[in-house]
């Protein structure tokens, strides 16, 4: 069983934070298939948040196929998140390192590199939405 917390300065809404914490726990192996998520009324009683917020988070996880609700019993983990296959991570990191070297050679400092990365990342995410 995991315990939720809320970070007032995270910039994420409470419901997004709950979803993110479950996904993290799945990635890190803190939650495995068959594990039960905290009951809605327990989360509400610990965090002082709206029950609809918890329900919404659980519904989204259910929609993503990660958990399943058993009426009257609770919500249980159905699948785990292994993250991207490890085999793919190595080559991607190599490419990124090569790109970083290029960026430094072009005269960009750390801050400029980060700004460029973030704005490109956000821009491409936005294009996907649009």
């Amino acid at each position: 069983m995991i315990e939720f917390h809320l970070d007032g300065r995270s910039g994420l809404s409470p419901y997004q934070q709950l979803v993110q914490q479950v996904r993290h726990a799945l990635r890190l192996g803190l939650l495995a298939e068959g594990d039960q998520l905290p009951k809605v009324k327990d989360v509400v009683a610990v965090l002082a948040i709206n029950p609809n917020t918890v329900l919404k988070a659980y519904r989204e996880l259910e929609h993503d196929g990660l958990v399943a609700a058993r009426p009257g019993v609770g919500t249980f983990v159905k699948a785990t998140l292994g993250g991207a296959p490890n085999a793919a991570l190595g080559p991607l990191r190599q490419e990124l390192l090569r790109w970083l070297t290029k960026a430094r050679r072009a005269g960009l400092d750390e801050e400029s590199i980060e700004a460029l990365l973030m704005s490109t990342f956000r821009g491409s995410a936005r294009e996907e939405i649009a």
Partner: protein
Amino acid sequence: MTVLRAQGLGKRYKRKWALSGCTLDIEPGHVTGLVGPNGAGKSTLLNIAAGMLEPTAGTIEVCGGVPGSGPAQLAKVGYVAQDSPVYKGLSVEDHLRLGARLNPGWDDGLAHDRVRRIGLDPKQHAGKLSGGQRAQLALTLGIAKRPELLLLDEPVAALDPLARREFLRDLMSAVAEHGLSVVMSSHLVTDLERVCDQLIVLVDSQVRIACDVEELLATHHRLTGPRRDVDSLPADQQVISARHTDRQTTVVVRSEAPILDPVWTVGELTLEDVVLEYMSNPTATRPALEVLR
């Protein structure tokens, strides 16, 4: 089905309108926050919904009836006024007995359980309780009458952070267990962000916006870029506020669609930012009204 429906609702005290043109639809099962500057009309709206005040204009329907129209209507609505009023000379136990006598749907088991859990001494006189205990006693009475709608006017204003958190925890547990709807006013937006799924911003006696909290956060953006005229913004971007320097323009807009114009640096706002933008720009645009889902 709505728990609260207002159409052009208004209340005038002598020449001043404390509330005007208030149109709202609140569906059951939600916790709705009511924010706005002092004197914006929050208490007036809650008082009308509870049946303590008669509206001057418009109509209001609460849980399918006219507020304060009879015993059946009164049983459906719980109301805890500002500063958690209790009878100073009566003991905690007396309050519970009073609640049982006055409310047909009274849940005595729930009331006594709560008093025990909060750690109130039943023999203690209410006048000797701390602010937090008084608020908890008032909430106990409000919950134990098992209303469909609970109205709370600034319930946590006088409480220290720990008492406030405990109060909100208990309130949310009651919402989860009994499925009651809540409308509560507060200045503490960070608290409201946790407990409310809907928000109403009242400014200068008018509803500025009534909206789902998630939607409020998702649709408001702060755009920063080179100076430009806000009239040149796309029509689907409603300007909440605009500030200019000689070179730069910062606008807060409400937009359903993502902001794609590459000229702008798009920043997200916290709920408190959004509320403050509306409160500090009372007449920038016409009120944005919509049905609360």
